[in-house]
Each structure stands twice: as structure tokens, then as C-alpha cells.
């Protein structure tokens, strides 16, 4: 068994993720350009779609939670944008390698690039969606603190967390083809258990359970700073831990199974 050669190859791929990052990021940009090429607003459609939904839900749903629209609209918008990022990445991760099957079997491109291409495509979408938040600020004017920039740090952490998680999901899904629907169920499940449309402080019981949901932390570190909501240091520590753990697990899994992927797709 030439296992050390295989491990070397996988590690070289992982190094290329950093060294040749322009390749997967450019491919992601090309995907976005390709998708919106023939439409008038181009990729602004992403922004418009999110804007319409955020407005519809944000304007009306606040009353169910006894919240003023001035606080609920930005809360929901920021939540929704962040959650869409998480949900689309996890959902698309299950198809990322299966969908790239032809390329995997015909090119030398590191297999992990297909996962990062998908992830980066979704990051571009998130940045488009962030415009919605900026656009509603003049109307709602929630108080912006300098600490709002911590949301960017949160986004970086979330990105890293999703790199690892997507790699794990993508590799499992390329081997077991009945897992993608399971992932969809899980995403649905998490949507209702994560404080996205409701506030965590409104929870009367089940707060312990909320603490077990990793998505809560990953969502809060991106959403809360920009809204001026305090983020406990403990939340940051857990988020950093989750990101590190997911990156390590994802890398180990990639090193272990890289050689099998071409056979499975």
C-alpha cells in the first residue's frame, strides 16, 4: 500500500488551497457570473430576492414576538442572511463532489477545490445579501457600535467552520448517496432550533438545549456584533473551538479518503 504517497498528495492539495487560492475563488466568481449572465440586474437579483423576503417577514413577524419593527426587521434580516449562508453551504456540500464527478475523473485539479469553489460561491452571495442590511439601516437606524466590525471576524470564523464541515459532508455524501436528503432534514431541523426568527432570550425552557446547538454560536458571532447585541466571550471561545475542530476533522477525513473519492464519484 502506497499510503504515505496518498497522504502526501492529499496534504499537497490542502497546501494548494492556500497557495493557489485564486483558482477556486475565480471559479466561484465565474459560477456567479455565469448564473446571472443573461439577466438585467445580474447578480443583484440575489440582493433583491433576499431584500423582498426580509422585508415581508421582518415587517410582519415582529408582532408575533412582541417586538418593535425597528429592532425586529434588522434582527431578522441579519439572521436570515447568515442562516441562508450556513444552510446553502451545508446543502450544496452534499452535492459538491458528486456534481463535479466528471471533473474529478478527468483533471488534476485538487479535489478539495470543488468544495471550496462551492463555499466561495456562497460567500459571494452572502456579501451581496449584506447590501440589504446596509440598505435598511437609514430607515431603521439601530445603534451601530465600533464593535460591529467583529461581525467580519465572525464571518471569517464561520467560513472556516464551514470549510471543515463541508468537507466532511461532501466526502460522506459521495460514498453514501442517501445522506443528502438526511442533510436537508437536519438543516430544516436546525432552522427551527436556532434563534433565527426568534430571540434566544425569549426562550422559557430549553436554553440548555440551545447551548448544545453549534449553529447558535456560529450564527451569533456573525449576526450579533453588527446589531449591537452583546456577544459573550464564552460564545467566541466556543465558536473558535468549533471552527478548529471542524477544520481538523475535515482535513483528517480528506487525507484519509482522498484516494477513494475518484472511485466513488
Amino acid at each position, binding site marked *: 500500500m502506497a499510503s504515505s504517497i496518498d497522504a502526501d498528495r492529499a496534504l499537497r492539495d490542502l497546501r494548494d488551497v492556500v497557495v493557489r487560492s485564486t483558482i477556486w475563488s*475565480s471559479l466561484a466568481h*465565474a459560477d456567479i457570473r*455565469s448564473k446571472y449572465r443573461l439577466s438585467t440586474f445580474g447578480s443583484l437579483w440575489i440582493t433583491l430576492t433576499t431584500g423582498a423576503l426580509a422585508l415581508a417577514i421582518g415587517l410582519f413577524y415582529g408582532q408575533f414576538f412582541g417586538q418593535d419593527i425597528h429592532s425586529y426587521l434588522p434582527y431578522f434580516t441579519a439572521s436570515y442572511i447568515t442562516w441562508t449562508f450556513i444552510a446553502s453551504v451545508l446543502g450544496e456540500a452534499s452535492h459538491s463532489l458528486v456534481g463535479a464527478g466528471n*471533473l474529478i475523473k478527468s*483533471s*488534476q*485539479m485538487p479535489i478539495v477545490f470543488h468544495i471550496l469553489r462551492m463555499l466561495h460561491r456562497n460567500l459571494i452571495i452572502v456579501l451581496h445579501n449584506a447590501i440589504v442590511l446596509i440598505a435598511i439601516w437609514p430607515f431603521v437606524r439601530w445603534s451601530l457600535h465600533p464593535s460591529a466590525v467583529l461581525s467580519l471576524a465572525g464571518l471569517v470564523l464561520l467560513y472556516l467552520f464551514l470549510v471543515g464541515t463541508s468537507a466532511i459532508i461532501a466526502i460522506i455524501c459521495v*460514498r*453514501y448517496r442517501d445522506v443528502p436528503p438526511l442533510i436537508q432534514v437536519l438543516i430544516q431541523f436546525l432552522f427551527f432550533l436556532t434563534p433565527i426568527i426568534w430571540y434566544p432570550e425569549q426562550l422559557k425552557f430549553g436554553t440548555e438545549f440551545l447551548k448544545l446547538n453549534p449553529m447558535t454560536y456560529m450564527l451569533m458571532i456573525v449576526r450579533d456584533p453588527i446589531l449591537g447585541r452583546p456577544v459573550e466571550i464564552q460564545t467566541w471561545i466556543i465558536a473558535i473551538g468549533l471552527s478548529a475542530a471542524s477544520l481538523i476533522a475535515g482535513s483528517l477525513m480528506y487525507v484519509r479518503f482522498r484516494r477513494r473519492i475518484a472511485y466513488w464519484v
Partner: protein
Amino acid sequence: MPSIVLENLTIDIPVLSIRARSLRTIAVAKARAIGGRIIDSGSHVSVVRALDQISFTLGRGDRLGLIGPNGAGKSTLIRVLADIYAPSAGTIERQGTLIPMFDIGIGFDPEATGYENIMLRGMMMGLTRREIAARTDEIAAFSELGEYLDLPIRTYSAGMTLRLMFSIATSVAGDIILMDEWISVGDESFQIKAQKRMLEITGKAGILVIASHDPNTLLQHCTLGMRLEKGRVADFGPIERVLNRPVHAVAE
């Protein structure tokens, strides 16, 4: 100095049945095992031995033609040499830079322009934007597509698309060419030009490995021949001999 050394290389391709692809099957199989009695292991992973104990050495100037019936393992061997399939057993050592010339059309976006596709395909070949930009002019000139390169390739004829694919694939420098069937492209004048370029590359390239069913192509371009049958090397030697030796004689 390019070289390829294969030693007892074996490739087992798992054929995962619908059941083996299912996590549920595995879970059920495990659950049954816990019950103390294995009714059906349920994992249904059968394995096809696509290549069986292949050994050979190629060095500078060697041009190997792979022949054999469909399913003999020719394309699999090409993909092993291209570093896509990792050996199940045995070893492969390769020195030199690859020019893969199979599946050269994968990754193109029909809605994108010719120029954008040069970029796209270039990146899939592992080149950075700068590296691609440096050779775009040359690719454009060779393809002779002129201002068509500013149009989406969905508007191209099949021949034009192939011209672009060929021009991109042959734009990289390397010394090991891998081909699954000889590529013939475009109209008569372009075919001559393409042929000339292929000869140029194969001429200066250290090693060419091509899988083909066409004896004339193989005689014209190869020095060595290898007949594969059911994943085993049935014959290996000078191309004329391998081609002329009757298939049934090999078995004896």
C-alpha cells in the same frame, strides 16, 4: 528526464450497488449483527479488477500505444498515469509534467465567451489567472476563432468548439502526453495544423501514451505497443509486432 515506472500496479474499482450506496443498508446490517445473527451483511460492494499487476517502464522518447477491446482497461490505465486513480496495489512512479489530452471538453460553460472559457478551462488545468493570461493570445491565434472568441461558445459550431478545446489543451508545456483516442479537429486546413502541432508536441515530449482502436494512428505515432485484455498485459513490445500478432495467438 521524464519517466514512468509501474510495478505490479493493480486497480480495483468498487462497484457500489444502490444498496451499498445507502447508509440505511449499513445501519440495518449493523443492527442485525447486534441481534446476534447476521442475516445479510448487506453491503454489496463488488469489485472490478480493472488493471491486474501491470508492470512496465517508459523513458524519454517512448511512445506507447494501448490496444485492446472495450473494457480492457485502456482508459483506466490512462487515468492512473494521470494521477486520478490511486493504485489499489503496486506502485507508480512518474517524473515529468503531464499534458492530459483526454476529456478536454469538460468544464466549459456554454454561456461564457471563448475568452472566458479559456480562463475557466485553464484554471481547471491548474493554471493561475496570470499564467493563463500569458498564453491567451497564443491560444486565440492558434484556434483561428478571431472575434468569435468574444461570443458565448453556445453559438459555436461543434468544430469550432473542438478547435478551442484543442488549442487550450495543447497550450501547456509538458513532457508526458496522455491521450484517449487521437484527437482530430476541425476542417481540413485546421486538421493539418492540429496534426502538425500534435506531432510537434509528441516529437519533443518525452513520453506519449495513447489508447486507440485505430491501427494506422498507432503505427504512425507509436514506437511501443501494449495489448490489454481484461486488465492484464497480453502483449508488450514494438508496435508493429503487437499490432500484427493475432489476438488468439496471445492467449497461447
